[in-house]
């Protein structure tokens, strides 16, 4: 930005300012705190100037939107060309109830679907499994088979709408069910668009919805990447996620570093499976958190784009520019929302959503104000969607690309994020790579430490949470909440039992046997590819529990080390 001698002058003037203007002010009016830190506890300076960016290079560090290294955004026109996709996470009870909510949200102007599944589904259990008791339909929709999937998307043209599915351990199966529904709707494979989360490493690190040991789980992910590369060109096969890492209590930097480190594993594995990097990398996608500290979040997004572009081009030798793009979905931080004075959450979500937009996200979910207590009511979800629409159409931030570029503060934070990430990459490499690091509990420990540090900061009131440790009210009128009773569970069990009676048992057994053989096979990238077998099983109306049960038989289950 400035020549060396300009920087020298500014440095001198800054010292003068500190002595002549700042010092007397501080004497009369000391600052409100000893130190100021970001939400991630990073120390923040009083003032940033050009001297914070020595050697900053416009073309190398910033560049132009739509060009390497994409710091300013993936596309030249960004939101002037196309707004981010407003994609609200939804799902509860039965497929019929969720189908209704899907249609409602589409009517209210959301641009794509995003599916939340219940815990039994996430964990690969049928609704009548003993572990499913009390959990069916509670935190997402219950899906036991293709029959449920057909109901979930009934009346929704899958050739025209893209769908994201937040599912990881059973991602391959739910994806196969979605593809089977598309087949029934007559949608050709090259028109099927959407995303499966399918990022298994972050389960061991943060979300804890793992099932099998790491190696076969990673194999399953690679299997889906291969299937996507060969058959579904519009499908994002992984949503490499930082959201859950952040929600588990990590800092923004850890969220960034661990996510990209996970991403690098998936790239390495797909290459080892025989794919050229450019054959699959354009369909890798990401998922980040949008927390309260607006500038820290914006810096995180910008650093993420720059880092991934550099990694893909320099480390992995990708030649197709589409392989260099960090395309990301974002969600406002659930963990920041309070049960106390829930209407305040509307303001929090607005700030967080703004951070995501200023950060250049491709897609966004905004949480509802009742997040800390239950799944969203229709009204609360609508306010959250309107928040995005207001940002898009009323705030003016979409009028120009990357409006915060050139801010000394933002560019410095962006640089710090990137530097910090490289340091983490080195530490992870020294541990033997990300899989080894996870086995040794490294990211898990970092996250637990950060979570504890943050909680302590709240309890000594270094961090203020409005309505919780300051500006509290004693009496609060209750707000309407969405209540899921156990009817969904009873209905699912009933339907499941009917399904088991009515389907063709021979076709079913053949498909499960073939799957079992492939799972145990030694030629995972050849004759033992799993997706085609999973599709066969799904079409034969095998239940999720049956398919996942085959894998449980062959691969066993994972037990995590207890790290507090």
């Amino acid at each position, binding site marked *: 930005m400035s020549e060396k001698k300009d920087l020298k002058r500014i440095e001198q003037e800054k010292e003068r300012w500190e002595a002549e203007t700042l010092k007397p002010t501080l004497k009369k009016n000391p600052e409100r705190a000893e130190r100021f830190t970001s939400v991630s506890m990073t120390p923040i300076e009083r003032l940033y100037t050009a001297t914070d960016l020595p050697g900053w290079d416009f073309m190398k560090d910033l560049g132009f939107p739509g060009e390497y290294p994409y710091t300013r955004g993936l596309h030249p026109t960004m939101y002037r060309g196309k707004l981010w996709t407003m994609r609200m996470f939804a799902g509860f009870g039965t497929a019929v109830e969720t189908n209704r909510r899907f249609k409602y949200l589409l009517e209210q102007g959301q641009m794509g679907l995003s599916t939340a599944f219940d815990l039994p589904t996430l964990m690969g259990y049928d609704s009548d499994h003993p572990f499913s008791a009390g*959990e069916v339909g509670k935190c997402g929709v219950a899906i036991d088979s293709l029959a449920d999937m057909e109901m979930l998307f009934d009346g929704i043209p899958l050739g025209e709408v893209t769908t994201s599915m937040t599912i990881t351990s059973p991602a391959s199966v739910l994806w196969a069910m979605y593809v089977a529904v598309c087949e029934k709707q007559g949608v050709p494979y090259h028109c099927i668009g959407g995303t499966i989360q399918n990022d298994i490493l972050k389960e061991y690190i943060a979300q804890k*919805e793992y099932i099998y040991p790491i190696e076969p789980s990673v194999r399953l992910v690679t299997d889906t990447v291969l299937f996507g590369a060969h058959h579904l060109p519009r499908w994002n096969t992984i949503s490499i996620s930082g959201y859950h890492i952040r929600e588990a209590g990590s800092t923004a930097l850890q969220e960034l570093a661990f996510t990209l480190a996970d991403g690098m594993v998936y790239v390495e594995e797909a290459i080892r499976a025989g794919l050229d990097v450019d054959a699959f990398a354009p369909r890798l996608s990401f998922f980040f958190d949008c927390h309260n500290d607006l500038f820290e979040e914006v810096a995180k997004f910008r650093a993420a784009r720059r880092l991934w572009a550099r990694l893909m081009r320099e480390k992995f030798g990708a030649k197709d520019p589409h392989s260099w793009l960090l395309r990301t979905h974002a969600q406002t931080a659930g963990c920041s929302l*309070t*049960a106390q004075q829930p209407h305040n959450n509307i303001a929090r979500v607005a700030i967080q959503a703004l951070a995501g937009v200023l950060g250049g996200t491709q897609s966004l979910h905004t949480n509802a104000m009742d997040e800390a207590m239950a799944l969203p009511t229709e009204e609360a979800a609508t306010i959250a969607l309107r928040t995005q629409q207001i940002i898009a159409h009323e705030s003016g931030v979409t009028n120009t690309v990357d409006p915060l570029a050139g801010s000394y503060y933002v560019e410095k934070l962006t640089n710090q994020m990137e530097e910090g990430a490289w340091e983490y990459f080195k530490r992870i490499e020294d541990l033997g790579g990300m899989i080894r690091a996870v086995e040794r509990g490294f990211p898990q420990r970092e996250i637990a430490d950060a979570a504890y540090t943050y909680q302590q900061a709240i309890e000594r009131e270094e961090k203020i949470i409005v309505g919780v440790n300051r500006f509290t009210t004693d009496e609060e009128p209750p707000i309407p909440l969405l209540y899921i009773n156990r009817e969904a569970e009873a209905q699912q069990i009933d339907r499941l039992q009917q399904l088991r009676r009515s389907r063709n048992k021979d076709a079913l057994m053949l498909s499960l046997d073939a799957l079992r053989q492939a799972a145990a096979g030694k030629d995972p990238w050849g004759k033992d590819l799993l997706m085609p077998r999973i599709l066969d099983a799904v079409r034969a109306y095998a239940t999720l529990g049956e398919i996942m049960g085959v894998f449980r038989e062959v691969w066993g289950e994972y037990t995590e080390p207890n790290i507090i």
Partner: protein
Amino acid sequence: MAEVAQRKIRVLIAKPGLDGHDRGAKVIARAFRDAGMEVIYTGLRQTPEMIVSAAIQEDVDAIGLSCLSGAHMHLFPRVMELLKERGVDDIMVFGGGTIPDEDIAKLKAAGIAAIFTPGATTGETIEFVKKNVKAKS
């Protein structure tokens, strides 16, 4: 109370059901440990049966249950039922998670001593446990 003051308070922190949100449970476990209590963290995916067995085996004074998946109304009362079946009446059970107010009343009626929802501090949880553990014979 004097007997309890002699030995460290022993607490089992448990995650019943399929819920994997362990941030709160881990922070509580660590805070309790730092506050001088003996903490056993069960880890994830515990059935109510496993929790009660562990609690009895570890001779704990209190059980802390954490559930953010919405299944608390099934899981927490089940723990209370099992304790009753096994004739255990000197373990205090408390809980936390994504639990709406109307459920808190029902859980208390089922014998849960307290529910700490989002916003509760480790400080107040520690104080509650210290004050309310039952004297063990």
